């Protein structure tokens, strides 16, 4: 207790700085995967992508980021076990932040594809297991998180498969795909607006003080869907169909119509990403803030402070603006195979899955989910070539990242304990 009273402000500042740094890293690196699909498919320029990402990542972090933050903050570690020594949780959360940050920095500089989500979860579990004790970990919660890492790519893949199949059946395989694209694309746009709004309303908005009935939520979601659809129809009507462009590749004009849908879907993806990944940076910060501000009350019921979410949002946008441009360009150039019709199916499937997970409070890897969705499109015979070796790399990165994050967190935990005394 004494330590908290003595160094409280220092801990707050440290947590804020580490959290901001983590959020910056997420913005610089991870956002690229959410936005590169639309840049790669030439639906957006890089500049437009940055602006859209900044707005929707921020909105996602603020509006729907609360649930996952809660999980990271108090879902993994059993706070009750620590009510007598809250400083342990403080050290632990700081150590976890530091560990995840260092690991990501190392991995990025070496070019290893690792997930922020896995780093932070591994780090928290690591310090709790060794620093506090096996009983301090909510194993069933951790179990469900790990399960969700398997389930989310599969689910996104299945959704993407059926979405792309429906696009094939309704539009691409028809005699006049242009007319059919004009007819059906607005429905898909509605679907994007409706699903994302609905999940956010049902699951995410409690912490900003909005508490609506289910019927109200559905009503607003339908309204949101309709508004977005209206904008979409307007945008489609402005597309100039130039049949001479179809001579070389017959689907050039169809893809132009899909580009509108792709833009909408990109917004949804940025929103989803913000809602899930911001928690990786600020979940531990939120835990530290609640302990310090309540003067050592570990299991405090105090709600998540909005300013913590803001911190995460600002960090992500800063990273995105400062560094993300280059990463988006690099990734975008490598995935030109993903034309708007395919990119939309993959991205919407991933966005839906991620937003659902966010609403349920499960921290998942956005990139892995997107990879699963791309595979779904591939299984629908929609992509010329997929390199399945990536799946092996994903498993490898799990196997390495979880213990690496954990061990680093343990080391930092003991260092902090030695410095401040425990």
């Amino acid at each position: 207790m004494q330590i908290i009273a003595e160094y409280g402000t220092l801990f707050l500042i440290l947590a804020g700085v580490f959290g901001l740094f983590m959020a910056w890293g997420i913005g610089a690196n991870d956002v690229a995967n959410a936005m590169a699909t639309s840049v790669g498919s030439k639906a957006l320029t890089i500049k437009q992508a940055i602006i859209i990402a900044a707005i929707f990542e921020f909105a996602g972090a603020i509006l729907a980021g609360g649930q996952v933050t809660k999980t990271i903050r108090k879902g993994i570690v059993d706070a009750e076990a620590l009510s007598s020594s809250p400083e342990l949780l403080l050290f632990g959360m700081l150590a976890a932040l530091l560990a995840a940050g260092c690991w990501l920095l190392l991995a990025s500089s070496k070019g290893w594809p690792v997930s922020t989500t896995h780093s932070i979860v591994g780090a928290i579990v690591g310090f709790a297991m060794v620093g506090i004790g096996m009983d301090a970990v909510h194993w069933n919660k951790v179990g469900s998180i790990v399960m969700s890492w398997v389930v989310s790519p599969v689910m996104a893949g299945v959704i993407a498969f059926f979405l792309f199949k429906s696009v094939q059946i309704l539009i691409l395989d028809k005699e006049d795909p242009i007319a059919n694209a004009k007819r059906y694309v607005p429905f898909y746009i509605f679907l994007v607006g409706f699903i994302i709004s609905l999940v956010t309303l049902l699951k995410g908005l409690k912490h900003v003080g909005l508490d609506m009935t289910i019927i109200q939520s559905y009503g607003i979601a339908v309204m949101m869907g309709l508004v977005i659809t209206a904008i979409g129809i307007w945008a489609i009507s402005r597309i100039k169909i130039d049949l001479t462009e179809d001579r070389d590749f017959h689907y050039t004009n169809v893809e132009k119509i899909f580009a509108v849908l792709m833009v909408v879907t990109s917004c949804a993806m940025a929103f989803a990403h913000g809602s899930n990944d911001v928690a990786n940076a600020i979940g531990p910060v939120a835990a530290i803030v609640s302990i310090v501000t309540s003067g050592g009350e570990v299991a405090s019921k105090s709600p998540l402070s909005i300013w913590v979410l803001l911190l995460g949002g600002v960090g992500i946008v800063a990273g995105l603006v400062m560094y993300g441009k280059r990463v988006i360009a690099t990734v975008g150039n490598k995935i030109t195979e993903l034309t708007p019709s395919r990119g939309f199916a993959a991205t919407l499937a991933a966005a839906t899955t991620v937003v659902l997970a966010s609403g349920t409070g499960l921290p998942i890897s956005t990139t892995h989910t997107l990879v699963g969705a791309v595979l779904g499109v591939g299984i629908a015979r929609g992509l010329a070539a997929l390199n399945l070796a990536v799946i092996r790399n994903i498993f490898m990165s799990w196997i390495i990242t979880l213990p690496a994050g954990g061990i680093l967190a343990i080391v930092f935990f003991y260092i902090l304990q030695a410095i401040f005394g425990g």
Partner: protein
Amino acid sequence: MAVGDYLSGIFGKSPVKPMQQHMEKVFACVSELVPLFEAVIERDLDSLATVQKNISKLEGEADDLKKKIRLHLPSGMFMPVSRRDLLEVLTMQDKIANTAKDIAGTILGRNMSLPDIIADDYRAFVKRCVDACEQAQVAINELDELVETGFRGHEVKMVQSIIGKLDEIEGDTDKLQVKIRYKVFEIEKDLPPVDVMFLYRIIELTGDVADHSQKVGSRLQLLLAR
């Protein structure tokens, strides 16, 4: 910082464009058969040598492309069509160019000439064989559209009709070949026997250009049949 490589890593190098480039090269090579036989008929040895060199060069370039495609199709690649079927199409494409090279080489090496009475028929025959190759190229050019539509629906019907047309052209070349063979048969007693042997061989090889083109179409059909 290369975290994004996850996502881009999953996209293999699409073989579609390279396949089309290869076919383009093959067609460029085979097109040279028209000036080649023109030079044979006109007994223009200079341009014959030039055209032969050109054919040989184009065939070599097609070969290089073929090797590159094969190298970029590792067995772990997940594609909408079977890898083996795709490689069969590639092999067939390459055989067309090989045949053109054989024809040019044999003609130049043996300093061959065509009997005057078959000259006009032979022009038509070569032209039709080159048409077959061009039609095969049209079919291969639909590959990216086929991938776009997931090898289903209206696009498949279109490709079927392109392949149907290819079969028709190949049928024409068969008829022309029968006609030319008969004309050669009628005069073969008056020609040196070894020359006649090689004349028949050239006729057969020319027909093979259309044959292999048609086989490109039928291998492509295998990709559709599922």
